[in-house]
Every structure is written in C-alpha cells, then in structure tokens.
C-alpha cells in the first residue's frame, strides 16, 4: 500500500506526542527540586521543569527530523 509508510510516520509522531505528554505529566510535573530550602525553590523548580519540558520537545523535534530524513532517503533510493 502506497501510503503505508506515511501512516506509520504519522502513527510514530502520535506515539511520540503521547510519550512526551506522559513524561511531562508523570515525571517532570511531580518533580520537587530543593536548592536553598526556602520560597525561591518553587521558582527555581518551575524554571527547571519548564526547561526540561522545552528540552523534551526539542528532542522530539530532532527525532522527527531524523525519522523523516531516513524515510525519504530510503523511499527515494528504493524507487
């Protein structure tokens, strides 16, 4: 089937979105970071969490980039 590869690519993207959502909710969300053991900890904790979340999204984008390059090169070479 001609579109099978693209279905798989979209499906993998969807799975990646679910995995990133899972990490953000269950791993990064509940993280508690204590540095100074005072009120500034909440701010620092939020900044670290936000950075981790953004980092995770960047990793997702890089993975997708690699995935599409491999798919395109493989399909063009085969045909």
């Amino acid at each position, binding site marked *: 089937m001609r579109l099978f590869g693209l279905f798989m690519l*979209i499906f993998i993207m969807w799975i990646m979105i*679910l995995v990133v959502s899972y990490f953000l909710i269950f791993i990064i969300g509940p993280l508690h970071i204590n540095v100074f053991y005072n009120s500034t900890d909440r701010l620092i904790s939020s900044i670290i969490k936000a950075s981790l979340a953004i980092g995770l999204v960047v990793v997702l984008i890089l993975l997708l980039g690699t995935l599409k390059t491999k798919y395109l090169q493989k399909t063009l070479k085969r045909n």
Partner: protein
Amino acid sequence: MTYLLSPLDIAFYGILVSAISFLIIFFMTPYLIKYLNKKGRVVVDYHKPGKPNVPRPAGPVLLIGIVISEILLYFLILDVKIISVLLTTIIAFIVGYIDDMKTMPGWFKPAALILAAVPIIIIGSHGNYLGLIFDNAFIPILYILLILFIIPIVGNTINSIDVFNGVATGFIIITMIPLLVSVTVFGNTNVLLMGLPLLFGSIALYQYHKFPSKIFLGDSGTLLLGSMYASLSIVGNSEIIGLIALLPAVMNSFLFLSSVKKIVEHREVKTRPVTICSDFRLVASKDKSAPATLVRLILAKGPLSEQEIIVRIFILAIFSSILAFISIAIQYSFMMGKISL
C-alpha cells in the same frame, strides 16, 4: 457574562450560525470570482493543461461569512471568547491580505501572526491549563508564550499545505470534526457554536475551491483558516487534540523547515521538491538539496496526478483525525478516572 444554554438552544443557534455562514459564502463566492476575473486578479494554475488563470483570493468572502455569523452568535450567547476568536481571525486575514497584495519576505507572516495571538491573551479567553492527554498541566506563564507560538505556527501550517486545488479547505473540514468534538468535551458548547461557522463556511467554499478550482484561497484565506482553527483549540482547551488532527500538515511544514533550515517563502526556494511531467503528473525531485515536503514524500514511490495526490492528502487527514478521536477517548477516560497509571 455567559448564559447556560439548553440543548434546544444549542441546536437552534448551531443550525442558525452554520446556515448563515454557509449561505453567505456559497452565494457570494460566484460574485467574488466574477469581480476578481474582471479586475485581472488571477494567478496561473501550473498543474493543469493549458495553465488556466484562476482568480485569487477567496479570503474576503470567507471572512464576511464568518464575521457575520460570529457577531450574531455573540448577541445570542454573549460570550466574550467570540470577540477574541473573531479579532484573531480578522488580524490573521489582514496579514494574509497584505501578503496577497504584495509579496512579503518569508519572515513576515510568522512574525505578523504573533499579533493575531494578542487578543486571546488580552481578553483572557485562554485557560491556565494545557491538556496533555493524561492530565492537565498548570502552566500559567508558559501557556501565554505558547499561545504566541501556536497561532503563527498553525496559520503557516495551513498556508503551507495549500499547494493543490481544495486541499486547505478539505483538510480543515476533515480536521474540524475531531476538534469540535474535543472542544465540546473539554471546553464547552459555546466553543462548539463558535467553530460551526468555520466548518460550514469551509464546506461552502470547498464547492469552488475543489478540483478544478474556480478560485484560490490566497494567503488571506489560508491564514484565516489556520488562525481560527488554532484560536478555537486554545479557547476550547483542545490544543494537543487539534495538533494531532493536523499532523500531516504539521509534518509538511516541519519537513519543509527542517530541510530548508530557515523561514522562506515557497517562491524563494530554488530547487523545487516536485516537477511536472509532460502528461501533467507530478514526480518527486531526486535532488538532495530539494526541500522535503509532504507531497514529495507521497510522490517518493512514483508519479501521480494532482487529483490522486489530493485524495491521498485527505486520506492522511482522515487517519490523523482518527488518531485525534482515539486521543479524545484516552483523555476523557483519564479525566473521568476510568483509567489511571
């Protein structure tokens, strides 16, 4: 101030605004086509034998239909979110119309579309939670920054998929269905009512935009569609569901960006991702420097006609919409405590 609507009110208002949007756009578009042809505001459709001239843009008629329906809806339900969605849509239309009249540099549309996000933030139509399938994340400050990204990204995403006859309108019609279900489940019925003029307006315009196109949307039309879709997903707490439904289009703009490595107008790209054969079928470029686009991926297995490509893009949109429905089911199950991890 917002009223709590009864199911009968919702049905009546829904039918009313859908019908108004549909009828205005359906009956006004032929006049716009005549006017644009008379004024010579046409562009060449390179994918067809004889390279016919097609009038452009259809954005103004889409805007009129949607604005009239949304203003009427505002007086019926008095929800201020309608004003923010409407302002976002109008600003996006203006940005696109400027680009329709005068070719602007590649950075113009994404940068100017940040302005379109401002009404949602100022009026405060957004929530502080981002629905992440398994739960909601409380990110009040980060969410505002996110809105400033979502509107330009989605606007340009729909703009970048509008490469063949009827693709942008057809794509929006398909992907609006899971979005409207999601805003009803996770937002409220007011947002559903706000989305109906976009859905039915797109259905009306599709009659003229589908293959062979009698009118092209132009940037004013595509940015309007994309920005309104994005603003509905924001005010309806359905950002991730909206994104999942749009995955083929997101993939297209992401593929383009990651291969070109900068924001440029399609016209500025030197190596074309696809070329036209003598029989007007399209073939993927083997040139490594050509941008990777969704159409190039579809054509990677061999040449296809324009109509065959359009059908395949719609099949991909249906597939991503099914994934969006599955995501709605998962999110709803977690929300109701039927599943827990």
